[in-house]
């Protein structure tokens, strides 16, 4: 492909090629290839999902009321979000209205999932891109204690506590089993934290590991079964009886009080641990503002958390909906999932076949026909690709576009959309503004890897607030005597029209998620999912426009070409989950990321 310009980036694939495959610490399978110039700056980036996805086709002919149970199985991280999106799609198709309580309980489950997912992402999947675990062994526990107490009133902060943590870590490292800390590029110059900050972060890594299990109990309470909660077209599958007793049967006050106590503990942990850590780590990295990619130009969110049931208009959503294009931050475009001109998927560079590959297809008309062919400039063979040819087809992910634009989705999109609408979203505006002031950086700093990571944390702080509000709303409604949780008027297929179609949306923790369903003679006729990592991780389109991952790597300097820490840091900041944008299978025996420099 040589050299060309697109979306304000100058792509040049003539330099040294670095291949990272697979990108570890993500759910799923992702490979990236970049070209470095003579100064080790990334001048071309190629992101590819290396596995075929085909959830849509196995749903054909099945009962629409069961689709959620299948979609829940695509992926191990957004389980509940897929299920929620699926029941919303079916409800939309069949014009089923859900009770107020059902909406609120779904909101609580969705917010709870955000908090869990964001926290686990920050501490267990992403922190190690910023935190040098081995350096924590050099820390002075006393100075660590001073540091911790200077940023938060969290009680676990004594010198003795940090000394214990350090000893545990030491034992772990000395036993040679670095465990979850394997595969780190420890000592790489791209790590900027002093040893004490590293030790504090390791301590909180362990605390978060212990705490995360408490968070998900909310799902067990409302969803019954765990780890795969139950969902229901028409509402939620849990009855409520405030006077009841015990831990089984209808939800009673005892269990609602447990929900309340978990919500309070989430708030405490997020406000006293997560946010202070984020700001502390951010303050050491605020000079490293690479990785913005498309975020300063094109952002998309479908919005979520409807305040009132059955109203999915933008004004009723507590997480904002909208699209920003071409960097025009003063113009927020409305988004409609059913408009055939808005969301379209392209396959010119994807391993699928369309009749005309210069045209995109709206998900209602989506086609998923595989076509695995390699371009003439591929190096290697079909079973052992050394270098992909990005001039041809090169990914199992399709390239979705909004009105023809490649978009970034995720917490950064949601927080920027909220920040830009202070009247409608004063809490989001306040959180973002506060963080920018604390770090003393301009708004443009948001458009970076660090900004993406910060947005996720700030969103978590917003979600714990919403979680409390939604809980109060639920209690008020229950106490007013409304115990209804499900509408089964249209449960029987005999009440359905002969043909129907609908779209369901959520904001998954990692971004906009849509399911589109066509029902014919009471069975699923077509089902399409466009998942967040398809938006972010998709390849080029027929015009050569690059996707969000690819754009985010552009122009980033890499300290050591054979230790692509900067690449991982930026990709992880999206919280990618390839398991559902492709499927859940990885190649034999591949334990370590291989990095090839050619």
């Amino acid at each position, binding site marked *: 492909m040589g050299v060309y310009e697109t979306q304000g980036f100058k792509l040049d694939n003539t330099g040294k090629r670095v291949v990272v*495959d*697979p990108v570890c610490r993500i*759910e*799923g*399978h992702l490979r990236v290839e970049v070209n470095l110039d003579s100064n080790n700056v990334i001048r071309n980036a190629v992101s*590819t999902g*290396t*596995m*075929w996805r*085909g959830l849509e*086709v*196995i749903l*054909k*002919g*099945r*009962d629409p009321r*069961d689709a959620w*149970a*299948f979609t829940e*199985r*695509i*992926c*191990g*991280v957004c*389980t509940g979000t897929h299920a929620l999106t699926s029941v919303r799609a079916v409800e939309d198709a069949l014009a089923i209205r859900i009770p107020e309580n059902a909406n609120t309980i779904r909101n609580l489950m969705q917010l709870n999932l955000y908090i869990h997912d964001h926290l686990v992402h920050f501490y*267990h999947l992403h922190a190690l891109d910023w935190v040098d675990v081995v350096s924590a062994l050099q820390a002075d526990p006393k100075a660590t204690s001073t540091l911790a107490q200077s940023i938060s009133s969290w009680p676990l902060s004594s010198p003795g506590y940090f000394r214990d943590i350090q000893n545990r870590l030491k034992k*772990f490292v000395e036993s040679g089993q670095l*465990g*979850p800390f394997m595969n780190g590029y420890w000592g790489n110059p791209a790590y900027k934290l002093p040893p004490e900050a590293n030790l504090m972060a390791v301590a909180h890594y*362990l605390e978060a*590991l*212990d705490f*995360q*299990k408490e968070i*998900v109990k909310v799902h067990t309470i409302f969803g019954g*079964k*765990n*780890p*795969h909660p*139950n969902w229901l077209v028409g509402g939620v599958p849990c009855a409520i009886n405030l006077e009841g007793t015990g831990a089984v049967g209808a939800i009673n006050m005892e269990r609602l009080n447990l929900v309340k106590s978990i919500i309070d503990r989430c708030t405490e942990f997020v406000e006293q641990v997560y946010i202070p850590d984020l700001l502390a780590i951010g303050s050491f990295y605020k000079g490293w503002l690479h990785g913005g990619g498309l975020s300063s130009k094109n952002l998309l969110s479908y919005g979520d958390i409807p305040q009132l049931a059955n109203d999915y208009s933008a004004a009723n959503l507590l997480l904002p909906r909208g699209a920003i294009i071409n960097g025009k931050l003063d113009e927020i475009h409305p988004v409609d999932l059913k408009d055939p001109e808005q969301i379209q998927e392209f396959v010119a560079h994807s*391993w699928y076949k369309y009749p005309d590959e210069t045209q995109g297809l709206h998900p209602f008309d989506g086609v*998923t*026909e*595989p076509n*695995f062919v390699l371009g003439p400039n591929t190096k290697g063979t*079909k*079973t*052992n*690709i050394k270098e992909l040819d990005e001039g041809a087809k090169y990914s*199992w992910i399709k390239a979705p576009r909004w009105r023809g634009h490649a978009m970034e989705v995720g917490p950064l999109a949601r927080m920027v959309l909220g920040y830009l609408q202070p009247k409608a979203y004063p809490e989001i505006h306040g959180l973002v503004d506060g963080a920018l002031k604390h770090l003393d950086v301009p708004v443009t700093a948001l458009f970076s890897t660090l900004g993406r990571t910060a947005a996720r944390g700030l969103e978590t702080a917003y979600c714990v607030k919403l979680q409390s509000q939604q809980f109060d709303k639920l209690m008020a409604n229950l106490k007013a005597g409304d115990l209804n949780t499900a509408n089964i008027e249209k449960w029987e297929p005999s009440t359905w029209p002969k043909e129907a179609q609908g779209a369901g949306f959520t904001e998954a923790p990692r971004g906009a998620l849509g399911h589109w369903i066509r029902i014919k003679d009471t069975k699923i006729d077509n089902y399409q999912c466009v998942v967040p990592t398809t938006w972010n991780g998709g390849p080029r389109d027929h015009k050569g426009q690059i996707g969000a991952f690819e754009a985010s790597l552009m122009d980033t300097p890499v300290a050591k070409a054979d230790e692509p820490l900067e690449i991982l840091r930026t990709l992880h900041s999206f919280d990618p989950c390839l*398991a559902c944008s492709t*499927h*859940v*299978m*990885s*190649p*034999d*025996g591949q*334990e370590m990321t*291989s990095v090839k420099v050619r």
Partner: protein
Amino acid sequence: MNPKKILVLGIGNLLWADEGFGVRCVEALNASWQFPPQVTLMDGGTQGLYLLPYVQEADCLLVFDAVDYGDTPGDLREVVGDQVPRFMGAKKMSLHQTGFQEVLMAAELTGKLPAELVLIGVQPEELEDFGGSLRDVVKAQMAPALNLALDWLERWGAAGRLRESEAEAITDAALAIDLYEGERPPADQAYRLGDARFLNLEAA
């Protein structure tokens, strides 16, 4: 003394043919047998860290899974103790194993790895059949696998008895094996193959 807390976990993605072995085993165990209250049977699917709390709480953990040991398809193996985490990570054929190995490491890091670990694994025949179910050689090993598990449970002081009434299903009814197999769309409508798993296979 309180009885040992026991977790019987089936893991894997049931949408991928023999990958569903673990989940199908725990589903079948639950359908035919009942156990004392200290035993939890769980369909773990492909959930990673979500499973950690259940693992941390257990004194004894028994896992059913499809594992690539390099054996003949359908071969059953029992792996015990320290060997379990190593086997889970030896040859990862699926993402859920990466996730589950992480769960075991996290349990260890927090000092809460179950004292007894058992993995009952089958060598899969076919994974590349999206929407498909267990192959015959693998399905035939469900009964022997269940017997091995029942022996362990008995050893751990939690012998099972045959169920007298119908059990509450562990997986959602829509995914129960009969419905799952019976309602599968025909191959001409629903492409079934995985990709060639080409990248990395011969990476050298």
